[in-house]
């Protein structure tokens, strides 16, 4: 569902920013909701960023602690995929 409302959400937030910045509409509940929505999206991004980074670090740590882990093998795979 969020995929379907994602585009209108982002568009609404951007429209509110443009309206308030160009002084077309500086007050009102629509602008307040739009600006708060924009910052809510930014906050979600911060959470996603922290989650994604910590999860990838966890995976990296888990991989390196595996008994069959070999840095030489990883370097070889790395060179091949490059």
């Amino acid at each position, binding site marked *: 569902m969020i995929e379907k409302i994602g585009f209108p959400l982002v568009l609404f937030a951007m429209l509110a920013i443009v309206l308030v*910045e160009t002084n077309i509409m500086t007050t009102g509940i629509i602008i307040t909701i739009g600006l708060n929505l924009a910052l809510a999206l*930014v906050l*979600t991004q911060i959470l996603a960023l922290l989650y*994604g980074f910590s999860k990838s670090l966890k995976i990296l740590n888990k991989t390196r602690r595996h008994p069959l882990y070999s840095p030489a093998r990883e370097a070889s795979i790395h060179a091949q995929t490059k």
Partner: protein
Amino acid sequence: MIILEIERFNSNQIIVHFIAALSLLVLYITGIPQLYPEHLGWILDLIGLSKVMFIHRLAGFGLVSVAVYYLVYSILSVIISGREYYSKILFPTSADIIDYVNDNLSILGVQQQRIDYDKYSWLEKGLIWSVILVDCIIMGITGIILFAPWSFASILPLSYLITIRLVHASFAILSLCVILPHFYLVHLSQFKFPMSKSMFTGTISEEEAREEYPKWYREITGEDL
């Protein structure tokens, strides 16, 4: 040989993206409420204006530091890896302009064009350049001046300082309007929901590479699609 995951970003790019994105997002959270206190004043009330300004400056320092680091890294990369490779992944090429025109024609329904992106599409290159020009150069310079305006008071008249404040605020809004579509593309779009993990793992699945970056995929695998 079957390649399941293909490297798209190196560890340096992942860390730089993380620090730059985190700094930038914190700058929005702490900066935009100062512009519109009548709509977002609750954030200032919740954290406190002095703390908000301190966090804003700290995040600004983080962004400027990472920008300087990446500039040095890029210069060294050009010297070591050669300009050809670096200019291909960073600077817009004629293929990017063709892709840009084709994508827009496709959106307008004029023609149905097959996507044939290289490692980084025109949109991704555009985004990185907007971050370099707007966030790092313009916001960075105006931010440093606004950080300690008394230091520049002897060189710059008051009217200039007011203009610089206005430029800093306006470009912050422009920057936010660039980041919001990026948020849509990596989190809310149909194929990426809830989030694209390639910027954290540094890899992309073979299938995704074939679908989204066919030109790059052909180049690295030698496969004819």
